[in-house]
Structures are given as structure tokens and as C-alpha cells.
């Protein structure tokens, strides 16, 4: 039977993946053109820089979420861990007088610990990832509220705090590109190398695609899962701190949207909800699409309330497209 049919199938399937990528790219371009027409400011260099700057936290969290999805798990806690990172950083500086960069390091360690807990409970204790990260999300929510009492930390006095998010390295059209954007770009390059050129990265594909195969190929599944969750924790915390640095304050709840947007970004970029498939470049594109949509809606004057609605709709649409249905 099958020789010819198999070849046909392969072509059709390969086309499907590339076609999806092309569709997403076209959609991004169309979306940008639309907002460009609707708002004269949208395509101005200054706004494009703003676009990248505001993409930083989401971009980092999308990496986190993509790698978790790659192993077939969700990380629901990313948004809350981002808040936690920002809060711990600012709290240490303001209330405890810890030097800015030492506090920054401690913030990263907090993310690392959160990720480790999620990873170890998922990998070794076999707790479903969404439940353990959901529970963690609530626990960190409690911790944040205990630290802050629900208030934000204003950081106007602390100049070195703002360096990462506000210092201008290059100036384009009077708008500077802060270090955070370079961190984002670097993170994506590293993410690409990790997934494409390291054994660990390739192993993650196998872990998500076929656990049994991974086990028999001698791949350490638990280590892979702990790795992605730990990475997720660190990146989320970093994202939260870069957000704090840019906004000049530590906010108790910044992460409301991030978990959702990150899933939307990765899934639009072709990451399979069932695991075993992701693409760093397309994750970036998908994430940018979500950012562009948000920024564009703001620019054309759609109230923030509608963005909840739009976000929900986009996530549902993205997942719907990605869900593999048997005929």
C-alpha cells in the first residue's frame, strides 16, 4: 500500500507545519498594517521600540511556557512567580536595604526555588504539573500579599534599580533601547541553541513526544522535567524583575495576564499542547503577535476591559487551531 500514500502524507504534513508558520507570519504583518492604518503612531520607531520593551516580560515567560509545554506540562505559576520576583527584589531593597544587585540575585534564586518545587513535585512525586503549579501560584499569592499587604513598592529613589529597564543603550528617534531588550534577544538565542544544538534540548522533545521512548533511550526524564520547571521559575522571576525595573515599582499583581498570554504566544507559534513540539523562532513570533495586539488595541483606543475578552478569545482560537482532532 503504503509507499506512495506515505510519501504523499509526508508532503501534506510538512506543508501543514510550514503553512501554519507562514499563516502566523502573514497574520502578524496584516495585524501590524491594520494598526498602522488605524493609528499613525503605531509604526513610528518610538512605538516599535515600546513594542519590544513591553514584549520583554512576556517574551521571557513565553520561553518558560514553551519549554514546559514541550515536555507535555503547563506551568500555571509563571505570572505569579513574575510578581514574586519583582516584589522580592523591591522588598529587599526598600525594606531590608539589601544592595540592588544582590537583591536581584536573590530574586532569581526565589524563582529557581519555585521552579525546583514545581519540577520535583511533578517529576518525582508525579503530581500533575498544572495542579502543583496552580497550588504554587496560590501559595506565592499569599506570600506576596503578606510581604506587601497589597501595596506596590515605589522605586523612584533607586536609580541603579531602573538601569535594566530604562537605561538607554542606543537611541533611535529619541527613544532608547534599554538593556532588557538585549536580555530578551539573548534569551531567545540561547533558547534556540538549547533546543537545537544540545543533547538536553533534544531530549526535551523526546520526553514530551514519547516518554516510553525517552526512558528506553536512557534519557533522564525527571532531570529534564526539573530542568524546564527550574528554567521556567528563573525566567519568570527575571521577567518580573525586568518589568519592575521598567515600571519603576514592584507590583503585587502583574502576572494576571502573563500565564495566558504566554500560552497563547507559544501555541500560536506552533507549540503542541500535547508536548513534543515547539519552535523557538515561532514562539517569538507568536509572542510578538500577542504583544502587537495588546499594544495596537491600546493605540487605537480600545479600553483595557475589552482586552480581557480579546485575550480569552485569542487563547481559545489558538488552542482550537492547535488541537489535533481525529477524524
Amino acid at each position, binding site marked *: 500500500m503504503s509507499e506512495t500514500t*506515505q510519501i504523499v502524507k509526508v508532503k501534506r504534513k510538512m506543508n501543514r507545519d510550514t503553512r501554519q508558520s507562514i499563516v502566523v507570519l502573514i497574520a502578524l504583518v496584516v495585524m501590524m498594517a491594520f494598526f498602522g492604518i488605524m493609528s499613525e503612531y503605531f509604526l513610528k520607531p518610538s512605538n516599535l521600540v515600546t513594542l519590544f520593551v513591553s514584549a520583554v516580560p512576556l517574551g521571557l515567560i513565553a520561553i518558560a511556557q514553551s519549554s514546559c509545554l514541550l515536555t507535555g506540562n503547563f506551568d500555571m505559576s509563571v505570572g505569579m512567580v513574575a510578581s514574586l520576583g519583582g516584589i522580592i527584589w523591591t522588598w529587599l531593597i526598600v525594606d531590608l536595604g539589601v544592595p540592588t544587585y544582590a537583591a536581584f540575585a536573590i530574586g532569581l534564586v526565589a524563582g529557581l526555588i519555585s521552579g525546583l518545587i514545581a519540577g520535583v513535585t511533578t517529576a518525582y512525586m508525579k503530581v500533575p504539573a498544572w495542579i502543583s503549579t496552580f497550588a504554587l501560584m496560590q501559595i506565592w499569592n499569599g506570600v506576596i500579599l503578606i510581604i506587601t499587604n497589597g501595596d506596590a513598592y515605589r522605586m523612584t529613589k533607586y536609580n541603579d534599580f531602573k538601569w535594566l529597564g530604562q537605561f538607554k543603550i542606543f537611541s533611535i528617534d529619541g527613544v532608547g533601547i534599554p538593556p532588557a531588550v538585549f536580555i530578551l534577544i539573548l534569551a531567545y538565542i540561547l533558547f534556540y541553541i538549547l533546543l537545537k544544538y544540545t543533547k538536553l534540548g533534544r531530549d526535551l522533545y523526546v520526553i514530551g513526544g514519547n516518554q516510553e521512548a525517552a526512558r528506553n533511550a536512557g534519557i533522564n526524564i525527571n532531570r529534564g522535567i526539573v530542568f524546564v520547571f527550574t528554567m521556567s521559575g528563573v525566567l519568570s522571576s527575571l521577567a518580573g524583575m525586568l518589568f519592575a525595573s521598567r515600571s519603576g515599582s514592584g507590583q503585587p499583581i502583574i502576572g494576571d495576564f502573563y500565564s495566558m498570554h504566554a500560552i497563547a504566544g507559544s501555541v500560536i507559534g506552533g507549540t503542541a499542547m500535547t508536548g513534543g513540539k515547539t519552535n523557538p523562532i515561532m514562539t517569538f513570533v507568536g509572542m510578538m503577535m500577542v504583544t502587537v495586539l495588546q499594544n495596537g488595541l491600546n493605540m487605537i483606543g480600545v479600553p483595557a476591559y475589552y482586552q480581557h475578552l480579546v485575550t480569552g478569545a485569542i487563547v481559545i482560537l489558538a488552542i482550537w487551531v492547535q488541537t489535533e482532532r481525529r477524524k
Partner: protein
Amino acid sequence: MSENIILKAENITKSFYGNKVLDNVQIALKPGKVHALCGENGAGKSTLLKIITGLYTKDSGSIYMDGKEITVNNVDDAKKYGIHVVPQEMQMARHLTVAENIFLGNPPKNKFGFVDWKAMNKRAAEVKAMLGKHGEKINIHDVAGDLGMGAWQLIEIMRAFAGETPRVIAFDEPTSSLSDSEVEALFALINDLRDRGVAIVYVTHRMKEIFQLSDEISVFRDGKYVGSRLTAETTNDDLVAMMIGRGLNLYGEKKDRKYIQDEIALEVKNFSHGKDYQNVNLYVRKGEILGMYGLVGAGRTEFVRGLFGADPKDSGTVLVGGKEVKINHPRKAIKAGIGLATENRREEGLMLRASLKWNLSMTNFPAIMNKLGLLNLKKEKAYAEKGMQIFRVKATGYDMEAGGLSGGNQQKVVLSKWVMADCDVLIVDEPTRGIDVGAKAEVYASLRQLAEQGKAIIMVSSELPEILGVSDRIIVMCEGKVTAEMQNDDLTEEDVIKYAFSN
């Protein structure tokens, strides 16, 4: 003779949760020979295979390679000695390429420790070349998930060639999910491997394959080693006797047709669905067992599922008791008095985590409802009690979980639930798959018992002896079409099998 042995395992014992699954067994493999391992389900043949290839660790015993004792604690250890396994469930990372799947978990790296894609593809091409004409069909850049089972098996075999030259390759039920042409290709490849001096272990249920392929046979029973024979000196009957340890008439008494009534219970006309099956016509009388034979992929399962409304069909009419019924959902089929025991009992046949009571009553809610349309739990208990007595299911009670029953008893529960739903026509798809020989006889007796009560039975099977032993009339399917219909009077295997292959 003995100096010619590559791998020898002796006194191997293994227990799971206190159950001894292997008790002091042995095996000796020679280069350039195919060694078949056979026995009933649960005989321990797969377990031994897994111990030799490092998937399980043994509790005690020793394994020798070239006369020296070796320790095999995991798959990597086994690979080091050139011992490989092609498992029953093939293990592909579906989104990765063939080349990556060949080097799964161990991709070539450059001097900086990064994955070296060029080297990987080059080595994959070399591995492919090693398989000669057998590898021609496969493109190492294809994504594994897009390929068929035959290609996956090839990838599994290519894995064996990715490192050191393989010395032992074990196949665990390799043909269970292959199409004919794929089976043929596999056998050619195995013969080729044998000629290259590889020692091959071959685990199978299928008698035919044992005689077609193997040079030697070892038989296991209940976790114990029974004995080894040269294939050339063994007959089918010898082998069966070794496997079941007693002479057993599987199929019961010589068939007596007096139960078959003239009345046609079910008639199917012009059934078609895409490439799966075309223009299938058949009928079955009350009290008759109609055997549907065909190779895997002939469209039998797809046809009965379409008939039952479990999967969609393109066209076709169904007449039950002479009246046309429209069936587009199993609910309608049940209403019309048709039942289907699917081929995959554990996935579709039963609710393994639910009680037998629930399993039995779920096909026939009206029978356990009161006048208000509410479930009557007392009625349900009586119903379940009755259901379990039809075939004397061996269980602790109707509150027991179905998953706790043996395969044979599970199949009896499946049959009972359809009988209890007042089905006049019962379709059974591969009724004895994964059931050991002793329990098979009970399933056959159950089917016979139903036919004698006037039920019409369609039995789909790819096991020819079963078809010949049980059915009154036989229909053969091939590539989606009915190729033959015959009364089962002194038919031989050859009479039937010739219709199962396309011309």
C-alpha cells in the same frame, strides 16, 4: 556445539510484587539463527526478553556473553554488548526526524559538546546503507510521526546498527501491528540479518511465523522453561502440546448445524466507507456463527464498526429481522438488537475501574429503571447477578472492579453485557486476542452456547484455526472487499487463506 553460543542466560528468576513471573528459566542463542520464544500469555517470554535486553533487571540467575558472565542493568549496558530489542510498542519521538530517532538520547556531538547535525545525518545515511535494499524506502529527513508502523520498525532496527555491530536482536511480537507487505519486508530483513550472523530472538503468538522463520524454538509455560527443539524436527501439534501442557480440544465438539434457523437475523447491503471497505454485502441467520476472516488491514474491523454505528460510513443499508434500520450511533444499533464486542477489550470493551455491576448494566438502562425513569439499584443488582451467571464469570462479586478479572473472564463480561441487552445479533471482533489458550476454549464455548440459544453471531478474526474451528460459514475479506463466502465443511486453511491475499 556449545562454543557456538553467543548469549546464554541461566537460572533466571524474576518476581513482580511477590508474583514469580520467571522461575529458573534458560535460553541459549547462536549466531546466524532465529530463536523463537513461545508460550501462552503470561508464560514469561516477554519478561525474559526484557531481562536480556536490560529493560528489566533479574532477581537472580546469570547471563553469559561469549562464555563470560556479564551484568545487564539497563538498556545502555545491553547495547554495549550489542544486544538490542525491537519492542512491541514502537518508541518514536513523533515530531523528530528519522535520523534523530535513530540516535535517540545519544546524538553525535561536536568538540564543543553541541549536537552535530551534519554528522548525525551522515551517520544515519550510513546506517541506512547498512540495511541495503531494506532501507531504501526510508528517508532519514522525514518526520517519524508521518511514517507507518513498518517504517517505525525499520527505525528500531536501524537503532541497533547505530552503535557497535549488533550481535543479538530481539523482536517482541513484531508483526502484531503490521500490514502484509510490511510483514513480508520484515521477514526478508530478519532473514538477511540471520545471514549476517546476528542471533535473533523472536517472540510471537503466531504459530505460522514460528515455522516460517525460526531455526530453534524454546517453549515457556507459567514462567517456567519447558524445553527447546529444532524447528525442523517439531510439528504444530508438538508445539501446542508443549505450550499448553495437555491435549486440549479448543473448539469443542464437532459442529452441529441443527441450531441454525432459516430466519435471517441481520442483512447488510452495499456497505462502503472510503478506502476502508467497499460494497460489502452479507447476512447471518439465527443460531449461526459467521466467521469473517481477513488479514489485518483488510477492513473487517472498520466494517463492523461502521455497521454498529461506532464509526461513520458512507453508504449501506442494514436489515434486522427483515426490517430496515438506520444506524448512525451505537445507541441505534443496540436498540435494533445488535451488540459489538470490540477488538481492544481493555480500551473499549470494559470500564476497567468500574464495578462489574456497572459494566453489565450500562448497555441496558431501561432494564434497571423504575416507572419514573429512575435507576432502581436493587433491580440492577439482580440484573448483574443474572449477567454474571450466563457464562459463570469467576469473580468475587458484582462489586468487583472489571480490571481485576483475568482476560478470559473480562471477555465473558463483555459478552454477557450484550446478551443482557437482549442483542439478537452479536458481533465479536478478535474475541480471543490476548487471552491464553485455556480461556480461549471457554470463550469459544460461550459463543457456541449463544448460537445454540438462537443468537446470530459474527466473529471477526485474523486467526485462521479459530475461524475454521468455530464458524458455521466463512466470509473472507481482502483490501476492503468480500472475496469469498463458503460453508465451513471440511475446509482447510489453504481453502480460505488464498482469498485473503490479493491477486
